[in-house]
């Protein structure tokens, strides 16, 4: 009994002995406002510091070094490639309507080299929004049944079996080629691939099979590669399960004819396979170019912000720069390059670094301002493409099967003379040869290096351990503010009870208040859950709307809006009108609602950072301030001070900006001017974001939107 009395006494005074960690927690919670301001600023600042903190890339495995041996690709192979380019650009080959002639030529060339050749017929399959795609294995996507014989594409596949290999592994070389309207660049890329291919039939060091896929890009490069990969990775054992192109008579005839015309035992009509893919290279040559030197652009972003192993990029970068003297490029946001504020920021960092260096000579972290600006532009585009979750090229299809792949786009300085063409063929071919030789020497999959990184230049990267700090700083205020709101809500209810009632009555009322107190958040949790449910429904609706045939983007957008409102009303009425209830009690409860919302946002952002860092980062930049500032408008209006007015304005602006359609229009307006924005565009955009991340983004945003206006 004495103990309890003591305890109750000690509760009134500050407790003398509290464990340090608890005291720290209490301190943080009580100062959550300052804490969150400091953390958010530090988070944003750390994001801008990332280009400074980027490390140089390095090749982490000695097994990858053989690529730097002196190249074996000679002028003989180059002239072989040249022959193919000439044949393909010859106007006679384009006479056929389906472009089958050029495929015949390519196949003939492959056969002449002694490779195994097969054609792969496919029907273009649109990317569909599949809500549960993320959690299932990549091959569980159902194959559409409604084929028509009018549209099909033909991939030509050539396979070289390695003389020393056991046929368990393969390297894939992809060259997109549109037989109907091919530019000179595409033909040139085929030429490069062919010269490498012809070399690889002769070399003795080959340990992995080489697959050369000439992807028919008339329905898009990605679709062709994805169709071939799907076929490659999911073998069909019964012929009954493939009611596809074989049903179409004209296609069949073509291939029959083809089989007879080419007199080779190595040609087969069936699907050919080699081993598991170690890596894949997609090779493209750009048609027009204004630059003054030969450059190579590397595209690496696959779906959902996945990146190939950094080693692959390192190898390409190392060989291109140090062996072939090509300039390597990664995508940049060009608009950032000329921004003056970024330049001045870079100068500030530079001068800071100088000061630091003068203080202590071993501190060398500064980079020149121009380099900083370029790094930031590259980083921004890296973040943007990862956040978008749409692959930047056909290499994206490989990443779904855990194959590391990148796209190399060679943009030569443009001239037409033959010397130049041979030069490009030689250098491009030698680069490819080197990369293949490196990968060929690997005994295991790429695993030494990073999968989670952001590029700031082709030879610099920010690893997950560094960029996570910025993100962690940014979202650290969320749990703190949630906890402080929760504690406040609880203690305030206690105080009011204690004041109003005499000490003898405390025991009576306490039982009642306690019963509500500790689990009172359940009501707000219910509200938050319902809003999330609505958000989920809204984000799943496009899937069903896309099933409706013959809809223009604008009408389907309208249907979407209507259905969303309808579903909100239905939820509202079915689930005992939670929103109305909340409104009545919100004066007291809003702190709890906000606390639950913030914790749910915290969970959501934490999850997203694991799935797709870039989305989480951009989402956090938008949502953290919004969550922290959110407050019911009524209270603000009533308070009437300048500060609350400012906060209200902030809330309204933030709420509108973060609402996805609004955000889209703003972005679009900034990029293209406001004139041509259109609701239909938004629909197209959403459809293009068929991947998982957009859905999450949508529904997390919805929640806070609702509350800031509650």
């Amino acid at each position, binding site marked *: 009994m004495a103990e*309890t009395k003591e305890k109750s006494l000690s509760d009134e005074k500050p407790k003398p002995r509290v464990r340090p960690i608890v005291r720290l927690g209490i301190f943080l919670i009580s100062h959550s406002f300052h804490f969150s301001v400091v953390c958010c600023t530090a988070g944003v600042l750390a994001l801008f510091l990332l280009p400074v903190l980027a490390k140089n890339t390095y090749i982490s495995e000695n097994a990858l070094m053989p690529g730097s041996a002196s190249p074996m690709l000679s002028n003989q192979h180059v002239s072989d490639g040249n022959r193919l380019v000439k044949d393909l650009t010859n106007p006679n080959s384009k006479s056929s309507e389906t472009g089958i002639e050029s495929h015949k030529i390519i196949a003939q060339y492959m056969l002449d080299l002694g490779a195994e050749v097969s054609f792969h017929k496919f029907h273009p399959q649109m990317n569909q929004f599949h809500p549960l795609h993320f959690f299932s294995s990549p091959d569980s996507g159902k194959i559409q049944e409604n084929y028509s014989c009018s549209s099909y594409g033909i991939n030509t596949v050539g396979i070289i079996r390695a003389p020393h290999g056991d046929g368990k592994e393969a390297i894939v070389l992809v060259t997109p080629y549109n037989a109907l309207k091919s530019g000179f660049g595409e033909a040139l890329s085929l030429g490069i691939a062919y010269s490498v291919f012809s070399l690889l039939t002769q070399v003795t060091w080959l340990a992995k099979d080489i697959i050369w896929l000439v992807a028919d890009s008339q329905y898009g490069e990605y679709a062709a590669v994805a169709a071939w990969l799907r076929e490659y990775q999911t073998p069909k054992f019964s012929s009954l399960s493939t009611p596809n192109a074989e049903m179409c008579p004209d296609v069949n005839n073509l291939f029959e004819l083809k089989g007879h015309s080419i007199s080779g035992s190595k040609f087969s009509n069936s699907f050919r396979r080699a081993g598991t893919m170690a890596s894949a290279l997609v090779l493209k040559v750009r048609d027009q170019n204004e630059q003054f030197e030969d450059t190579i652009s590397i595209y690496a972003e696959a779906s959902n912000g996945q990146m190939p192993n950094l080693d692959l990029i390192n190898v390409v970068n190392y060989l291109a720069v140090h062996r072939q003297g090509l300039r390597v490029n990664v995508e940049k946001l060009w608009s950032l390059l000329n921004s003056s504020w970024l330049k001045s920021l870079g100068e500030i960092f530079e001068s800071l670094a100088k000061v630091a260096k003068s203080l202590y000579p071993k501190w060398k972290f500064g980079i020149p301002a121009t380099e900083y600006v370029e790094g930031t532009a590259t980083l921004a585009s890296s973040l943007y493409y990862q956040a978008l979750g749409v692959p930047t090229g056909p290499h994206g299809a490989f990443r779904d099967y855990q194959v590391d792949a990148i796209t190399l786009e060679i943009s030569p300085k443009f001239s037409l003379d033959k010397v130049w063409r041979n030069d490009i063929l030689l250098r491009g071919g030698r680069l490819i040869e080197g990369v293949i030789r490196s990968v060929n020497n690997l005994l295991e*999959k790429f695993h030494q290096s990073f999968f989670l990184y952001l590029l700031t230049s082709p030879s610099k990267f920010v690893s997950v351990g560094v960029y996570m700090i910025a993100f962690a700083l940014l979202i650290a205020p969320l749990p703190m503010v949630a906890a402080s709101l929760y504690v406040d809500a609880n203690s305030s209810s206690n105080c009011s009870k204690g004041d109003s009632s005499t000490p003898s009555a405390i025991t009576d009322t*306490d*039982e009642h208040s306690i*019963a509500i107190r500790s689990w009172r958040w359940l009501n707000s949790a219910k509200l938050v859950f319902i809003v999330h449910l609505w958000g989920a429904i809204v984000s799943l609706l496009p899937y069903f709307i896309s099933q409706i045939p013959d809809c223009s983007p604008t009408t389907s957008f309208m249907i979407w809006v209507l259905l969303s409102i309808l579903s909100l009303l239905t939820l509202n009425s079915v689930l005992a009108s939670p929103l109305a209830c909340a409104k009545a009690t919100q004066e007291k409860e809003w702190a709890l609602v906000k606390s639950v919302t913030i914790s749910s946002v915290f969970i959501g952002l934490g999850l997203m950072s694991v799935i797709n860092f870039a989305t989480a980062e951009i989402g956090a930049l938008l949502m953290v301030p919004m969550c922290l500032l959110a407050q019911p408008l009524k209270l603000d209006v009533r308070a009437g001070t300048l500060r609350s007015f400012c906060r209200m304005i902030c809330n309204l602006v933030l709420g509108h900006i973060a609402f996805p359609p609004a955000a889209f229009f703003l972005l679009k307006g900034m990029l293209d001017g406001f004139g041509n924005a259109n609701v239909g565009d938004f629909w197209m955009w959403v459809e293009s974001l068929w991947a998982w991340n957009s859905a999450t983004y949508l529904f997390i945003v919805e929640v806070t939107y609702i509350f800031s206006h509650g």
Partner: protein
Amino acid sequence: MEKVKKKIGSFSFWNWVTASIIFRLILIYFPKNLNLSSRPEVSTPLTSFRRLAEGYWLKQSFMSPYAGSMYHGSPLLLSLLGPLTINRIEGQPNHLLYSLVSVIADVVSAMLIRATGQNLRLAYLRSLESLDLVKQIEVSEFLFSGDIAALIYLCNPFTIVACVGLSTSPIENMAVILCLYGACSRLIPLAAFGWVIATHLSLYSAILIIPVIFLLGCGPDSPPRKLFLQRHQQKEVLNQSKLPPRFSWGPVIHFAFWAFLWSVYVLVLCGISLKQFGGLWEMFKSTYGFILTVEDLSPNIGVLWYFFAEVFEFFRNFFLIVFHVNILFMILPLAIRLRHRPCYLAFVYVAICSMLKSYPSVGDSALYLGLLGWFVNELADMQFSLFLFCGYVGVSLLSPVMHNLWIWRGTGNANFYFATAMVYACLQIVLVVEGVSAMLNHDRKLRNLITGKPQDAKS
């Protein structure tokens, strides 16, 4: 859990029950999309549906169902559920009949939980009455804990996932609940039957014998006996009829007899069904032996697989003993401290088992979260409830994501997945610790009310 409202009329209760059943039936029609039955969180080597089907197939082709270390469940389940694995109705999802059995098991469990919860609530009110605390504690504010517990069990996503994911845990859970129900309503043969079946299906339920003995010996949960004595000392009239009964050995012996009878019966049945395939020894070796030696190291939401994948072979036996004794160590102190609240003791035991068992699944969590609902009145002032709730939500979302990163995308590794398993284990520890301390605080508060001391502010 959000769906549980504060006050649930009976009409609304049945609404929620039907809604949850309909939701399950809808999910059953999309098994391909969800692929739940292959998730490591749902189906462990002990509860997996695929293994059950494999065992049944082996037995049909006159081989031992335990051949090839595929099946590790009871032979009785094979005879009862096995035929359902191959029966198909034209045009319906493949395992419709089996899923329906799981749904029925869930609903039966929920009804049993409801009945037990009502029992417990009545017992609680009775003991408050005999302590003369009815006026001080507003009884009308008391929640119908039975309804709430049943709804938590039915609407819990974990239960739904275990049911739709075709694991056998709904049936195991039903056996445990049957045992507790029988003990609470003093149906001794039923309690014994439930206990024997639960132990037969999963070894860990064996420790439930302690709460069951307390339940049968002293009746359902009540404040500590000391309080009653204090109360009556104050009044200076010792009314024997208002005291809770002392421990009586009669029902316990009765229970022991029935438990013996049922276990002999079950063993004989198993022996008959395994006559050609190595008999009972084979069964013990590949069910209990499999559980105790942690042979299968495929990832699950527990922590043991990772540990035993790392540990050196010659330390393995030592750590096996350490891990299993861990559970046993906690039995005695908890039993002494919570002996006046046997149902709560059962909840704590179930929670600890699901934390430390070798092949945990979300079905186990579903069971103890449902049992937690019985004590909403007592645990009203539990701390960290929001934190725990957010933790459970976070972990249950993070775990599939980490698994995806590790298995399908290849960007993560086993440590990612194991980290969520550790967080999950920590959450369960916090839940048990906070739950027990809240319950003890509740007892302390009752004592203060009796002795007239001011309210302990810390509660």
